[in-house]
């Protein structure tokens, strides 16, 4: 049977307290169509999808399903209308098993009791859709808490499918999947299209949008600013729509001589469980890149310098030999680390922006704390970073992803660090926030801060750094600079094929 649906959202508005998350959201999608929903972080994509799935109710505007206005007050009402969603923040229950999660609320029943045998069988059938693409321990009875992020994402997708929806929203569903799993998902999407389902695809990955979407709706600052047919547009045009005055990562590299500046950091033969002897120097005002495949020791290197993990070898800061045994010592010596996992390592989500920003620097405000100065300092940093927030006293959990990340960086800027360690800081944030972040990095570098910058995005390293060390298997496999710093060399060094030391 071919499914049939049209869904239109018109002039949807949603405000949270003083912050407008969505000021004019519009989109339209119909059977057999994949609509890409694009926008920078905080542009209102998630808000608009949540309105469609009934998770939040709009303050104004309306949603039409098959031409009739509807108002979903709860997710189950939207689900009855055939709308199902794969959420970005996973909707899985950690203490329940895979099958219990997938069938939560629509368990197969027998005599009013949950029919576990049937549930198990149906779950296995769903899992078979991703056959061979997950580890064997992913069984219907495995608890969610034992699964890796990509496996949870797969379960989340299967859960949305289990409702047999007419319209499915994939909100950043590919973010934690590997390429094979993404391929499988896209095959499924093609099947769904053939069955007459409508799909709304929310993603940051342009490449994926051009692979599977038919149309694109672009949001900017809570407003729908354009609809395009994918076949008749290009990346440049979409990015321009997403951010005003794009100017992304054009070559921002600057040829400058660092050897005349004093050496800030010297590392000699640093070893940890992962690192097998790494040596490097960073000058003041230098942005030294760390490249290579994921997990080759980049995080270990940064953590070891910061004193967060044990290491052997020599570390000297401004010529003085130091070996930090605790992050506190590193902080006191003017070292700052922006962690990779912001959510779990960098932020106290329920506390205010103000408290989060000051967390690392309370001690410099005396006893009793000089509140007025603390406030004005953090206000200045917030302005410098162009943070969008209701007030300094709003909880961090009220911020969008990009703005939350600015809080983590702002926290360290307040300490005016002399050496800044960045552990893949732009992972999972959108182009708009990235562009601002690059400017910030350049400002810091120009003001004389020494920066050690690990990024999993080769474009960033190529665009921002004068010199890049590529790590492979716990060692520096190449030091690239000048004409050697090219994509080819970067990629081949990541594979460990070049040794140019």
């Amino acid at each position: 049977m071919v499914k049939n649906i049209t869904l239109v959202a018109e002039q949807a508005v949603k405000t949270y307290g003083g912050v407008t998350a969505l000021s004019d959201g519009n989109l339209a999608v119909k059977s057999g169509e994949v609509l890409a929903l694009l926008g920078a972080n905080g542009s209102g994509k998630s808000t608009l999808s949540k309105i469609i799935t009934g998770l939040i109710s709009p303050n104004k505007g309306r949603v039409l399903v098959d031409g009739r206005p509807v108002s979903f007050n709860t997710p189950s009402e939207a689900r009855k209308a055939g709308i199902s969603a794969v959420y970005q923040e996973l909707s899985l229950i950690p203490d329940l098993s895979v099958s219990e999660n997938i069938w939560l609320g629509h368990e197969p029943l027998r005599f009013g009791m949950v029919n576990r045998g049937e549930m198990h069988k149906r779950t296995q059938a769903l899992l078979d859709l991703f056959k061979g693409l997950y580890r064997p321990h992913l069984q219907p009875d495995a608890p969610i808490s034992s699964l890796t992020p990509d496996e949870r994402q797969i379960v989340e997708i299967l859960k949305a499918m289990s409702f047999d929806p007419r319209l499915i929203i994939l909100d950043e569903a590919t973010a934690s999947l590997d390429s094979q799993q993404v391929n499988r998902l896209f095959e499924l999407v093609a099947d769904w299209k053939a069955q007459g389902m409508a799909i709304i695809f929310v993603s940051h990955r342009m490449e994926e949008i051009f692979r599977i979407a038919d149309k694109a709706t672009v949001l900017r600052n809570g407003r729908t600013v354009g609809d395009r047919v994918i076949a008749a547009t290009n990346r440049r045009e979409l990015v321009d729509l997403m951010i005003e005055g794009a100017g992304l990562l054009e070559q921002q590299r600057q040829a400058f001589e660092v050897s005349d500046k004093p050496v800030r950091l010297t590392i000699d033969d640093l070893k940890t469980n992962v690192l097998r002897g790494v040596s490097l120097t960073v000058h003041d005002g230098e942005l030294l890149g760390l490249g290579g495949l994921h997990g080759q020791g980049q995080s270990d290197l940064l953590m070891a310098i910061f004193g967060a993990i044990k290491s052997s070898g020599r570390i000297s800061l401004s010529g003085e030999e130091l070996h930090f045994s605790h992050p506190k010592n590193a902080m006191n010596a003017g070292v700052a680390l922006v962690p990779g996992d912001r959510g779990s390592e960098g932020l106290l989500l329920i506390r205010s922006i103000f408290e989060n920003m000051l967390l690392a620097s309370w001690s410099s405000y005396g006893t009793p704390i000089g509140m007025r100065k603390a406030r004005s300092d953090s206000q200045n940093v917030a302005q410098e970073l162009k943070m969008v927030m209701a007030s300094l006293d709003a909880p961090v959990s009220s911020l969008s992803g990009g703005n939350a990340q600015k809080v983590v960086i702002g926290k360290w800027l307040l300490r005016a660090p002399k050496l800044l360690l960045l552990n893949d800081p732009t992972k999972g944030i959108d182009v708009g926030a990235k562009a601002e972040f690059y400017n910030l990095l350049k400002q810091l570098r120009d003001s004389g801060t020494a920066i050690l910058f690990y990024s999993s995005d080769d474009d960033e390293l190529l665009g921002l750094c004068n010199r890049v060390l590529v790590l492979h298997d716990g060692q520096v496999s190449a030091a690239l600079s000048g004409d050697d710093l090219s994509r080819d060399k970067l990629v081949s060094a990541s594979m460990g094929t070049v040794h140019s030391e």
Partner: protein
Amino acid sequence: MSNLTNRFFSRNPYFLSLVLLVIMVVINRALQDNLFEIGPLNGNLRVFTPAILLAIGQTFVIIAGGVDLSIGSIVSMGTAILATQIPTDATPDMIVRAVVLVFLAGLLAGSLNGFGVTALRLQPIVTTYATSFIFAGVALRILPEPGGRLPRELTTFWRNPLQVTESFAIPTSIIAIAIVILLWVLLTKTRYRQFLYATGSKADAAYSTGVRVNRIKFSTYLFSAFFATLAALALTLGSGTGNPRAGDQMTLPSVVAVVLGGTALSGGQGGIIGSIIGALILGLISNIISFASLDSWVRPLVDALIIIIALAIPALVGLARRAWNK
């Protein structure tokens, strides 16, 4: 804690409490020779029953991520109602009416808690602590002083073990608890069980999946109030009289029993079997203390020590393992 111990404890959540129960039974048996004879057994279990029922009710609330600090006062209210509504010469009609009345009052009390937590979105601790004073006040209004005497036929039915054959008898309370366990097992096969654990484990995820989180939370306070009323019934039948302060010291032990039984206070885990074991352990501890004829000031100290050690065992095992691995 290491992965292995973690897995062991998550697969056998009752293991520690069972070990502790066995230890308590052995100590108790050493102090009291006739522990396993039907008379003392029936008597002990009858005394433990109200605490067991309260622990069962508390388990529902804690699994869903809340806590109910008013159940002791609901017991007081229940005994006050029963003692005043069932005079010594009560007719069956009066008894039925009194029982209906006491359950209505209990469920009303539970609804008040549920209303505060779900509609008013108050913290469970605050809500139920506040309402506990309301219910305690109602109990004192109904029955200002201990008193009342229930018909002898009623109390003897509850007090004496059920004679199956001439030589074999079962304590009445075991039958009552067995019925409750049976109902629980049936309940764990329904959707309600899924919703209950989902709500306690991650309420917002459950909500976005379409679980009516507020209804589930509300229902747990009805369950705790219902079991508190059953406890009031057991207590009143056991003593034959009413005491408006009977439940004063019963609330916190119910929470301790639940935790001893392996149910996490953070919600989403556990079950009533562990809580029953936990309540039995607490009962045996107080038995042991009274048999050991300790000075009265030592009693709360020993009581507290045993509870703290019991609660700390999983963490201690983990510490020992880590020290061993170093």
